Structure formats: C-alpha cells, structure tokens
C-alpha cells in the first residue's frame, strides 16, 4: 500500500535540527546563547509530532492488518500477509547493475521500533531541557539530538538496505557529535572518535555484506527489503542458497552483515567503544547508547531474518557471540565503580541476550527484549543522570550512598528499572528475558542456556550492587556536595515517571504466561514469522515452562540475595589509588588490548615506516637526479675558458672536426 506521509516522519525532527542549529549558530557570538524557551519548545515539538504521526500510522496498520486477517479467516486461508506501507521517493542511483531507489517502507517491525524511538526520543528531549539547562551549548545539543532522531527514523524506515545504511551512518555521526559534545576535554573527543572509527569497521562489513548479497540476488531483484524477503521466501531460491558456492557466498554475506551489527550494537569483537561513549551527556547515553541506536543491529537482523535463517552457520555464530558478550559484559559490570560504566556494560550484556535470541532463531523474542530494554535501560540511565545531576557531576559510586531518602522520585524510577532488569516477576525484563531463556533452551542447546542463566544471576548481582551502593548503603557523599543534593526539575522528573511505569508494564505486551496476550508476537509475525517457522519447524514439543520459569526466578532472587550478602554487610572496600585492581582492569580492557595488537599498532607501524622511510627514499631519488644534473653541469663548466674568442674558436674547430670526420667516413665507406 502506498502512503504519502512517511517522509514526514524523519523530516519533522530534521526541521527541529535545522531550527535549533541555526539558532545556535546565529547566537554563537552572544553571551548566553538562544532563548531556552524557544529552543526547548522547538526541540520537543517536532519529535512529539513525529511520535503522534507514528502512533497514528501504527493504529492504521493494526486496523488494516486486522481487517486483512479477518478476510483471510473468512476465506479459510491461513496466511499471514505483510501489511506494508511504501513510499518510493526517487531513484537514488541507477547505473549498470546498481539500481537503488530512495524510499520508505512501514510495516509492523518498523512501526514498533518507531513507536519507542520517537516516544522515548521525545521524552529524552524533554529530559534534556532540564539536564542541559545550564549548559552554554544546549541549543546545539538539542539540535544534535533531533538530528539523531531523524537519522534513526531513516534507519528503521528505509525501504532498502542502502537507505538504512544512510541512517546507520547518520546515527553514527550523531553519536560521534554527542559523545564529544563537551569537546574541550580531549578525552571526550578521543572517545567520540573511537566510537566513530570502530563503527566504521562494522560499516565496512555491512557494505561488503551487501555486495555479497547483491551478488547472490543478481541485478534483476529490486534491492529493497521487500524484494530480498520475497526472493528468500521462495522455496526454489532457498534450496539454491543451501548448497555449493552460493551457500558460501551467503555465509560470507551474512557474517559481514553481522559484523556491521556487532559494530553498531557493541558486540564482540567491536564493543570497546560503548563504555567509552559514556563520556557523552547522560541523556545521550540513555537515548543513543541504551534505548535506540545500539539496538539497530538487532533490528537489522530482524529485518533481514529471511536472509539470515538461510545461513545456519551464521546463526550459530550470532548465538555464540551473543552469549559470550552477555557473559563477558556481565562480569565486567560486576567490577565497575562508575555508575554509568555499570549501566554501559549492562547494556552490552543485554544486547548480548538479544543476539542470543536472534541466533537461536527467536527473532521476535530478541526484538521484544529490544522493546522492553528500551524502557528499563532508559529509565536507569535517566535515573543515573538525575543522581549525577543532583551530586553535581559525581559519577563514582564509591562516593554515593543513602540517596534513597534524598531523591525519592529518582529512587522510585530506578527501582522500577532495577525491578525490570533483574527479572523479578511482572517487570518488563521478567517477560522478555524469560522468553529468551525459554527459546534458548528449546533451540540453542544446554550450553548456551547455562551461560544465559548464569548471566542472569550476574545481572541481578551487579544491578543490586549498584542500587545498594547508590541508594541503600550509608552515605559516603562528600558533605559539601551533600548539602546541595536536590531533586530534579519537572522536565526531568516527568520522563522518569513515564519510563518507570513503562518498564514495569511494557512486558505485558507479550505476557506469554497470560493466555491471549501476545499482541507483540502477533504484530511481528508477518515480518519475522516465516523465518522463524523455517528454522524452528512446527513446534512439536512444549518446553517445560514451569521448570524454566522457576530457574529464571531462582536466578534473579539468588543474584539479589548474593549481592546483599556480598555488599550490604561489608560495604565497599576502597582501594587507595581509586583505580580498579589489575585483574579487573585487564578484564575490562581485554578487547581494547586486542584491538591495539591486531589493528592499531600495525597501522601505526606501517604508516610510520611509510612516512619515515619510503617518503624520504623517494625524495632522495628525486634529489639524486638533481645532483646528477648538477654534477654534469660542473663538468661542462670546467670545459669552458673564460675567453670569448677561444670558446668560439673551439666550437668552430669542433664543427670543423665533425665535418672532417663526416667526410672521412664517407670517403672510407665509398
């Protein structure tokens, strides 16, 4: 179906970006920048409009889907037809075999992503009004944030991989700009650059993966998600890609695409940038590095589920990498002292869960976790931001404690987030994480399940530790700072409340224990259903749901209890230097070291050699030629007399000799 309104979705925040950008630029000279009211109003208005539009679209989509479903049931058909609104805009480029259109497409997956992207996006714009109120560059900040939103919308709304790539790089750019927002500190700039660079490595994988995919599809298939899906859903094609060189091509393609996902979603091996990215302002961490951008890898896998299920090896790799990342990051989160770092590693770990789910073929479970995670991780970050804000920029948990009474609202919101992420009954994480554990049990084998459940325990441990250190333990706050602790303004509180409620309630979108509530799965079914069915086959046996549930709950409760035992009694041992112990540090920076050895040092060494050896060598060569010419010059100058007549006479004699020689030779040859 054609829908003429899709283009408005990204353009609205883009307008917000332009207005705020121009405001910021035009008032750069003035002493306090543009009016906060104006820029704030603009910044919230446009994302909100976008949110409203996506709500309306989603409502329409559900309506259309329901009516089509009804028709199909009436006709006795058993089809899950994709309802898709498309808006092809123009031909991007069309050269040789490369025909790429620029357009948007909207289906259930996009709809769900857009709902929470624009929704949480709007809330975080609102939150930023309060958080950045005292910053000189708040209009610039809001402009970047709006630009990010526009790009993120393009990412999920694109009708083909290349339009997605446009948004994909765009969000990377905004992430760069926002991480390095306080650019006077060079460390922030370095973190921003690292994020962009590491992402670029993934993006190269993405591009190459697309090339391979294109190779498989051939030039006649339109290079849109629709075209790709339909091609791969054709059983004849599936048989073809299952074997021989095409299978190898497909494996290469999917692995490279997955590399792109690991870059964006901070999975092994490209995960080092996300913890560093915490250098950015906290709203950024909440929106970009927790709720939206980092989940775009999972989104892409869901988008191309039909492609990925055709490459079983890649699916295994995804599952293993997801599990490994989840475990590694959970362990890392366990030893951090910076509140935002804990949350960052927690994000990495949760993303690992999502990839694990996708890897075992449960695309809808993975995406559901994306959905719930967006709520509870956003609220955790915003809560952390609120704490940091209240403490005047303090991020070290060793200098917090006892804040539950001082910041009741923040505490309540973070409690909701904590409740959700540890997987306590009824919270958002309870539903989605259990779903993933269940699917892992069913399709992933016991080893992955053990890793996953162990990670769940660890998650409960480190999150509880965070809550203890910040809220429940006796106060270790600097008395001078403690004096000024205050609850945040309403613009920050409102998002906290909404998101806190969301993290408690979002799970009910697919409460698989409650019969009949499977809204989420039903909505997504047309998009990822065929792929899942292909991999899982008809569900012959039912999992031991009760046992799995019990195990999951035990993990959560066990972790919490363990954490109380470990940290409540002994409080926190402070090391003198304030640094992490060596082993923890090594573990935390494991992949940074790997990157250094594998990529950074070799590049530096080669470029040093080229610059210091090759270039001088070439220069030397040029000089050598120059010297040779000069030497010849000296030689010939030495032949000259300083008498004009002699010189002329000599040249005349020379001419004479040549003439004579010529004649002689002529004579002799005759």
């Amino acid at each position: 179906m054609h829908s003429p309104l899709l283009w408005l979705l990204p353009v609205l925040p883009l307008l917000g970006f332009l207005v705020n950008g121009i405001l910021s630029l035009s008032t750069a000279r003035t002493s306090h920048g543009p009016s906060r009211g104006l820029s704030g109003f603009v910044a919230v208005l446009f994302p909100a409009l976008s949110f409203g539009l996506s709500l309306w679209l989603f409502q329409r989509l559900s309506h259309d889907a329901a009516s089509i479903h009804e028709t199909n049931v009436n006709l006795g058909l058993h089809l899950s037809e994709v309802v898709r609104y498309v808006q092809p805009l123009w031909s991007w480029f069309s050269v040789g075999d490369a025909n790429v259109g620029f357009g948007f497409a909207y289906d259930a997956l996009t709809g769900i992503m857009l709902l929470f992207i624009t929704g949480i996006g709007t809330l975080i714009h609102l939150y930023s009004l309060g958080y950045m109120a005292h910053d000189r560059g708040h209009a610039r900040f809001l402009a970047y944030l709006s630009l990010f939103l526009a790009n993120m919308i393009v990412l999920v709304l694109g009708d083909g991989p290349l339009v997605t790539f446009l948004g994909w790089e765009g969000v990377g750019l905004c992430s760069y700009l926002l991480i390095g927002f306080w650019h006077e500190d060079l460390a922030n700039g370095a973190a921003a650059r690292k994020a962009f660079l590491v992402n670029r490595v993934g993006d190269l994988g993405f591009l190459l993966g697309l090339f391979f995919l294109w190779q498989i599809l051939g030039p006649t298939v339109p290079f849109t998600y629709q075209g790709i899906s339909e091609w791969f859903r054709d059983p004849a094609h599936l048989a073809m890609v299952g074997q021989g060189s095409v299978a190898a091509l497909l494996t290469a393609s999917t692995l490279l695409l997955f590399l792109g996902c690991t870059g964006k979603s901070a999975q092994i091996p490209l995960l080092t940038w996300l913890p560093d990215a915490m250098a950015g302002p906290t709203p950024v961490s909440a929106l970009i590095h927790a709720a939206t951008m980092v989940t775009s890898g999972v989104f892409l896998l869901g988008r191309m589920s039909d492609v990925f299920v055709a490459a079983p090896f890649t699916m295994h790799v995804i599952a293993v990498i997801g599990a490994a990342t989840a475990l590694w990051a959970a362990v890392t989160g366990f030893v951090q002292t910076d509140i935002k770092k804990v949350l960052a590693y927690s994000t990495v770990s949760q993303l690992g869960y999502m990839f694990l789910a996708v890897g075992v073929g449960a695309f809808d479970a993975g995406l559901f976790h994306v959905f719930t995670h967006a709520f509870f991780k956003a609220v955790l970050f915003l809560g952390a931001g609120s704490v940091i804000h209240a403490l005047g920029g303090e991020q070290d948990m060793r200098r917090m404690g006892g804040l539950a009474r001082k910041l009741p609202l923040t505490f309540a919101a973070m409690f909701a987030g904590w409740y959700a992420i540890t997987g306590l009954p009824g919270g958002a994480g309870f539903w989605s994480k259990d779903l993933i554990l269940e699917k892992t049990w069913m399709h992933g084998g016991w080893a992955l399940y053990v890793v996953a459940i162990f990670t769940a325990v660890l998650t409960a441990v480190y999150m509880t530790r965070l809550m203890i250190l910040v809220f429940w333990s006796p106060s270790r706050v600097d008395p001078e700072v403690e004096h000024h602790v205050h609850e945040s303004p309403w613009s920050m509180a409102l998002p906290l409340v909404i998101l806190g409620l969301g993290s408690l309630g979002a799970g009910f979108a697919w409460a698989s224990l409650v019969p009949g509530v499977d809204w989420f799965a039903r909505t997504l079914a047309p998009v990822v259903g065929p792929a899942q069915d292909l991999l899982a086959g008809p569900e012959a046996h039912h999992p031991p749901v009760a046992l799995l549930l019990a195990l999951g709950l035990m993990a959560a409760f066990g972790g919490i209890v363990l954490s109380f035992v470990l940290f409540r009694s002994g409080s926190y041992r402070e090391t003198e230097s304030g640094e992490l112990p060596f082993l923890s540090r090594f573990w935390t920076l494991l992949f940074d070291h790997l990157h250094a050895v594998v990529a950074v040092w070799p590049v530096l060494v080669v470029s040093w050699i080229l610059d210091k050896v090759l270039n001088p060598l070439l220069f030397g060569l040029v000089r050598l030629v120059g010297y040779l010419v000069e030497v010849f010059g000296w030689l010939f100058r030495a032949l000259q007399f300083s008498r004009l007549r002699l010189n002329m006479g000599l040249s005349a004699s020379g001419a004479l000799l040549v003439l004579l020689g010529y004649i002689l030779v002529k004579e002799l040859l005759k």
Partner: protein
Amino acid sequence: MEISIVHLQLLAAVLFALGLAAALGRRNLFFVLMGVELMLNAANLSFLAWSRTFPGRSALDGQVAPLFVIAVAAAEACVGLAMLMSVFRNRESLDTDDFSRMKE
C-alpha cells in the same frame, strides 16, 4: 648563364672563411658582428648557387631561403647592436677578452 656553380661556391667558401676569421680572430665586438654578417652573406650566395642545380619550381626554394636569412640577419643585427651598446655602456670596452664573467 655561363658562370659555373663551382666558382660561385668557391667564392662563397672564401668569403665564409674571411668572415669566420674576422668573427673569431678579432677582439673588437664590431668586427665579430660584421664577420658574422659576412658569413651569412656567403651562405646566401651558396644557397643561390645551389638553387640553380635544381629543376623547375623546387629551385625557387633556394631563392626564398636567403630572404629569411636576410630577415634573421636584420633581427640579429638589431639585437646584437643593442646588446653591444649596453655592454659598452656597462664596461667601457668592446674587447671580447674583457668579457669573462660568464663562467662565474
């Protein structure tokens, strides 16, 4: 009509040698210049003489060449004399043996 080509060429050779002797042997710049002129004249004579050994229109090429020689000689005399004047004004001398700065 009856003047033999060889005689003409011989005359040209003699004049050329004389011009060369003046150009090389004399130290005064004027004589050098005039020696060159004489050599050019000798070459012209040679051109004309040879042209008479060619048939038809191609003989006229030999008649046209001296035209260009004269033009070039005019240019040479023009620049040469100007240089000579400026040299004289700088050096107060026209003796070629005084001019030995080129090598430095």
